[in-house]
């Protein structure tokens, strides 16, 4: 009984902290970073600019340099650059559903960030990153069955509500009907198995950076680069296998936090969209300062279940379960380590 109360307290106490703690500095190795530039810099910006037009992006970048020509710290941009080019490189829905190069380009995002390095407050570290989703089985807009169903539903809304000389209120009514249709069609799509929790996918990301000496572009030594590749394959309706490859050659890592130079891992998940069991295996190669290198391998296993919307509980064991850098999210209750997350283990993208 006491353990149940403590667990409930853990859930309540953690709920408010989750969004702040969902940081790109503590990311799941089986996902490619949403914004690789921020992950590269070990930052989680509280505010990210996402311009939707080239002019807005240009103005934002220009404002990132002060009147003395120095780059400001704290810049954070995330854009989908090829979506600016729809007039020159159109991607119709039919083209998108071919899942070819235009689909990849449309789903490519670029990020840029700046931060003041701990060891040199006069300089600025800058990074740019790229993320590309090559395949995503859970992309509803790439599924002709989904889009046919939604257009049939919207046609029904228009047949009932649309007429000449519509007012704004009339359009709102059409949209409300359409929004309800979207929710229903999407739920049916998920329930039918097409929008599977264990859908296959592959994504990759890359980031590189420079140190702007004295925050100016006149001296910009490189700070290295990093790359991520994650692939997942679902089998049947209750299993998902994931693999990740990461190369990290950054020189701006805080002391004591150096990641492995090259790491590779595999994860197997068995269960459903609401509860599952998992096992992770990973290995890494880290060069040391005297010219040699060390190899390490780690594992973890456990179960996780969805306690509420965007609230997952996980318990397990192993060398990588609930590592020391996440003390706020790990509690020991009833001799078991529990941790709290906003997302489950099976989001590979």
């Amino acid at each position, binding site marked *: 009984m006491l353990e149940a109360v403590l667990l409930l307290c853990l859930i309540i106490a953690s709920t408010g902290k989750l969004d702040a703690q969902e940081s790109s500095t503590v990311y799941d190795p089986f996902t490619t970073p949403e914004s690789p530039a921020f992950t590269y810099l070990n930052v989680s910006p509280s505010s990210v600019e996402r311009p939707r037009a080239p002019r807005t992006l240009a103005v934002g970048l220009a404002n990132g340099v002060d009147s003395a020509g120095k780059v400001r710290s704290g810049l954070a941009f995330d854009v989908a650059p090829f*979506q600016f080019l729809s007039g020159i490189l159109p991607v*119709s829905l039919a083209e998108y*559903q071919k899942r070819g190069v235009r689909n990849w380009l449309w789903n490519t995002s670029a990020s840029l960030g700046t931060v003041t390095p701990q060891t040199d407050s006069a300089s600025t570290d800058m990074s740019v990153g790229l993320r590309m989703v090559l395949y995503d089985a859970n992309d509803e807009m790439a599924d002709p069955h989904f889009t046919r169903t*939604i257009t049939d539903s919207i*046609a029904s809304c228009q047949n009932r509500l649309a007429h000449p000389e519509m007012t704004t209120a009339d359009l709102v009514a059409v949209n409300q009907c359409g929004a309800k249709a979207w929710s229903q069609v999407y739920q049916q799509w998920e329930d039918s198995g097409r929008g599977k929790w264990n859908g296959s996918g592959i994504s990759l990301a890359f980031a590189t950076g420079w140190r702007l000496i004295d925050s100016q572009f006149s001296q910009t030594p490189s700070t290295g680069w990093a790359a991520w590749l994650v692939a997942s394959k679902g089998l049947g309706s209750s299993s998902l296998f994931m693999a990740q490859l990461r190369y990290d050659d950054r020189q701006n890592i805080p002391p004591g936090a150096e990641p492995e130079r090259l790491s590779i891992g595999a994860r197997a998940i068995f269960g459903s969209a609401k509860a599952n069991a998992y096992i992770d295996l990973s290995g890494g190669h880290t060069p040391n300062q005297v010219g040699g290198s060390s190899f390490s391998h780690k594992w973890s296993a456990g179960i996780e279940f969805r306690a509420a919307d965007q609230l997952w509980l996980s318990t397990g064991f192993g060398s990588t379960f609930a590592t020391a850098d996440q003390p706020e999210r790990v509690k020991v209750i009833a001799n078991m380590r529990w941790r709290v997350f906003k997302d489950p283990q099976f989001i590979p993208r």
Partner: protein
Amino acid sequence: MADDSILDIPPATVKLAGASQPLTVEMTFNTPTTVNYKLWFRLKDADWQELASGSFPDSISQAGGHFTIPKVTDGTQFDSVFTFTGKIATPIDGSVLFIQGEFPLSGGTVPMKGQISSSHVTSGSLKAVFNA
């Protein structure tokens, strides 16, 4: 506060190349959203008539995004509703062309630009009047 699910499309005034001649309405869409449309027209002092209704991508329609008003006279009006669905914040980039002969008429290229709203649905109404 403006409703982010409404696409603002300014009304168009189109100069006809020739009165009492056919006019073609051509639509193109350059981003991966679904599009449902209903088109109407009415001659001066007449009732509204439905010109077309359908969706993009549409595997059934043979029209291919072209619809023809058989005879357009001075004062003919055009009205329409377009409903777009897709992932939130997907850009909307389309256009409607009013054509007589081979080329769009003066004032006859009407862009539709915006983005999919937070409810996954955005609608707009394109209205035009044709003058000789």
